[in-house]
């Protein structure tokens, strides 16, 4: 099988690499973070809940974007990493570990899982990787439901002192900003070129001297550990951890919807997608099925008419407008 062509050929993130220095990008990110940090002092509880959901999805979609958008590994196994993070938090809560330690441990365990399954998963190329990751995540969920080791389908209750909701909001904010910062920094490193080379043509990349397995593993592990961290924060939020929730396919589906609608291979895409999906969800409260069906239909249209997502289409529009402006003046 020849490796499949990338979904996004023109990568806006790498295209305007030279325009703004890394320091300025990180400064913008820090400014956004500071504004969002102050939210709990300004908005009501409901708005904070919505903010939590947006940041959670933005972080997850950013992590998935690193894998699918920049490395070309379209994974349907995200739920596995979220679930592993969730259960790591639950297990460490039982042992009364500090929250910060449990969150970091969740990221580490998820990265280790990525490393352990990578020899098998990376033998699968293109579409087979996609179904392979789906099968892996579903197998893990079914095992967690049946095995007694982690209390099966009944799950685990967190007994540690529950953090206040604004603290959870801050945790998920740090995760989302951190995930984006990781991607922004990676895009400035030679690693980004290796990842893109693997995405565009694995065989050619290997011939050019890229260590394909290692490049893929870095993306898989970094993306997985970010998802694990979000899973850990989610465990603190729900307080009860069950396999069908923590390892549920819903995670995978939402991540893919948000990342693709926002724009694969763009830095702002996951954020735009998360805002879009959660605002649509909140405006259709009480009709979750209709919300998801509409989101699916939007994805159909985006793939067909705006392959680089809403974010990509907006960047295109901005560039076109700038060109018109220049020719006029």
């Amino acid at each position, binding site marked *: 099988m020849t490796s499949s062509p990338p979904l996004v050929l023109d990568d806006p993130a790498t295209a305007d690499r030279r325009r703004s220095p890394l320091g300025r990008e990180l400064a913008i990110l820090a400014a956004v973070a500071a504004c969002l940090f102050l939210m709990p002092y300004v908005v009501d509880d409901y708005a904070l809940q919505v903010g939590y959901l947006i940041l959670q999805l933005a972080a997850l979609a950013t992590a998935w974007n690193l894998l699918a958008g920049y490395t070309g590994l379209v994974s349907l196994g995200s739920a596995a990493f979220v679930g592993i993070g969730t259960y790591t938090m639950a297990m460490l809560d039982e042992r009364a570990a500090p929250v910060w330690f449990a969150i970091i441990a969740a990221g580490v365990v998820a990265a280790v899982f990525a490393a352990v399954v990578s020899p098998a998963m990376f033998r699968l190329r293109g579409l087979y990787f996609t179904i392979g990751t789906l099968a892996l995540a579903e197998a893990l969920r079914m095992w967690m439901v049946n095995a007694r080791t982690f209390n099966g389908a009944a799950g685990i209750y967190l007994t540690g002192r529950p953090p206040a909701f604004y603290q959870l909001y801050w945790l998920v904010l740090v995760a989302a900003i951190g995930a984006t910062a990781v991607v922004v920094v990676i895009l400035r490193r030679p690693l980004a070129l290796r990842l893109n080379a693997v995405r565009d043509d694995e065989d050619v990349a290997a011939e050019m001297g890229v260590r394909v397995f290692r490049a893929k593993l870095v993306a898989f592990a970094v993306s997985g550990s970010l998802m694990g961290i979000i899973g850990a924060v989610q465990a603190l939020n729900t307080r009860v951890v069950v396999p069908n929730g923590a390892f549920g396919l819903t995670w995978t589906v939402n991540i893919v919807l948000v990342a693709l609608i926002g724009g694969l291979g763009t830095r702002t895409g996951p954020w735009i997608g998360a805002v879009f999906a959660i605002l649509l969800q909140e405006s259709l409260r009480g009709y979750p099925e209709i919300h998801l069906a509409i989101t699916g*239909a939007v*994805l159909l249209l985006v793939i*067909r008419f705006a392959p680089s997502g809403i974010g990509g289409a907006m960047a295109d529009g901005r560039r076109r407008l700038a060109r018109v402006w220049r020719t006029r003046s």
Partner: protein
Amino acid sequence: MGIAAIDVGAIAQAASTGLLLGGIYALSALGLSLVLGVMRLVNLVHGEVTVLGAYLGLLALSTFGLDPLLALPLVFVVVGLAALPVHRLVLAPLAGRGEEAALLTTFALAVIMQNLYIQWFTGDTRAITRPYSRSTIEVLGLRLPGVYLMGFAISLGCTIAVYALMTRSGFGRRLRAGAEDPMAAGVVGVDVGRVHAQTFALGAGLAAMGGVLLGLAFSFTPTSGTAFLLVGFAIVVVGGLGSVAGTFIGGTMLGVLQSLGALMFGDGYRGFIGLVLFLLVLALRPNGLFGRTAAT
């Protein structure tokens, strides 16, 4: 294991029930295999089309009083025809845009259909129950559920029909040519786009018929599609991509292994065993799968 004595009778019982169940699984998987082999499309909406078949079987019974088994040809035709505009409007325009665009489009279709099912049919667990659903037939000392035997026979009959279609008809020749080398097939006058549309329709029709049989044999929910899809992929991988006979044999193998596994570890592990088998075959011989393409 802590089993005192190996119960040969129980093993034979589980193996034969699994064989029949696997044959039932194989019908839906056959559609998945054809679409993957001919169109190179990982059709993530296949499980939802299978569930659609189950709901149509249920509706045929509740609305028209029509026995789901008698409604099978109707379900095949209706779903096959409904698949044609979906291919025309949604998938065909993506030709030349790479495999991922088509894959993610079927993902979007699956999300849409699954949520429409919940909206229309509620999330309740359903099962198609007929007088013959609970009857068992005794063969050589084994008690076999009648509905499994009928489903197995129907699935085998459909598989033979598809095999004949592939090997004896003009459509089959064009389909095999399109699968082997789309460019060369186009040069010698095969309308590859049309072959793809027909293959997609055939795949959907087979999935829906498989869904009726699965609805008779099991209970199902609006979200059963993912499980059906993964079982289908496991069968395709075990049986060999695009092979009609291989798919049926792969189905029976998977069914037997699942039932024996359920006997050993507990019924909850049925699905888990299928997925582990799938991952093992996929990881151990990934290249063996891509080599075989001809639908024979």
